[in-house]
């Protein structure tokens, strides 16, 4: 009887943790518009250090997250990431190829991607690393970009309001 009670107690505790984890899972779904005033310096305009989209449309399911980015100065980029972190192809304008992967890490969404294109300096590969976090109806994205072969990394943070 005592052993049965222990088993039941453990089972209930694990079940409770599972429910708690499910409840803590963030949902980034929605349409998000860049708030330049609350963002870091130089995230928008003609020549941002790191290009942030003006608007992001996100649809999230338990297994996937769809991200469509649009901007005045950039052509649209979209992807449906698997939340298991597997690599997917990002839909990009002609002349650019990009792959990326996403996964949830606690309350954050991590997206890493690699963009390739040709230039007069040869083939360029730029790696982007994004950390998304939610606070109510505010989405914050921290982003770094590093070009292959270069030791310097750019970092910026942008804030988005939910429409």
């Amino acid at each position: 009887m005592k052993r049965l009670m222990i088993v039941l107690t453990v089972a209930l505790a694990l079940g409770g943790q599972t429910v708690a984890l499910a409840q803590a899972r963030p949902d980034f779904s929605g349409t998000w518009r860049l708030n330049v005033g609350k963002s870091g310096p130089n995230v928008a305009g003609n020549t941002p250090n790191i290009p942030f989209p003006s608007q992001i449309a996100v649809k999230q399911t338990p297994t996937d997250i769809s991200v469509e980015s649009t901007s005045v100065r950039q052509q649209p980029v979209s992807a449906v990431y698997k939340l298991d972190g597997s690599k997917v192809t990002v839909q990009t304008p002609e002349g650019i190829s990009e792959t990326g992967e996403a996964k949830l890490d606690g309350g954050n969404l991590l997206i890493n991607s690699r963009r390739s294109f040709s230039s007069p300096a040869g083939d360029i590969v730029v790696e982007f690393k994004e950390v998304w976090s939610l606070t109510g109806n505010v989405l914050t994205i921290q982003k770094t970009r590093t070009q292959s072969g270069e030791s310097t990394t750019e970092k910026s943070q942008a804030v988005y309001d939910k429409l």
Partner: protein
Amino acid sequence: MRINLSFAAVSLGILLAATASVQAHHSFSATYDGNKPITLRGTVTKIGWQNPHAHIYVDVKNADGKAVTWEVESAGPTALLKAGLRKEDFVGAEIIIKGFLAKDGTPTVNASSLTLVEAKKEFLTDEKTP
């Protein structure tokens, strides 16, 4: 902070977004590709010091060692001078350019930041910047 010229890369991030919005007389999107950020490192060979944009010509070596001359559209002289940069600081200097590639495939970029490495004069700078 004063900089040790022997070892420090004197960095001057030129925040062009604000100045460009004031000074721009043409559309960024018509000429440059916002989806193609690029970093270049090379030696300045010539500078066009005129408003609304200074044009910096930089020899950049490709992977095969062949130098290609890039034209870099930058902020105008007024903004550069405010940031402590004079025309004579550029020619012959090693420079790191971060910006966006031209759409037409030519070696042309619109700069979002300039970094003078081993500058010929001292600047106030932020060590956190490259």
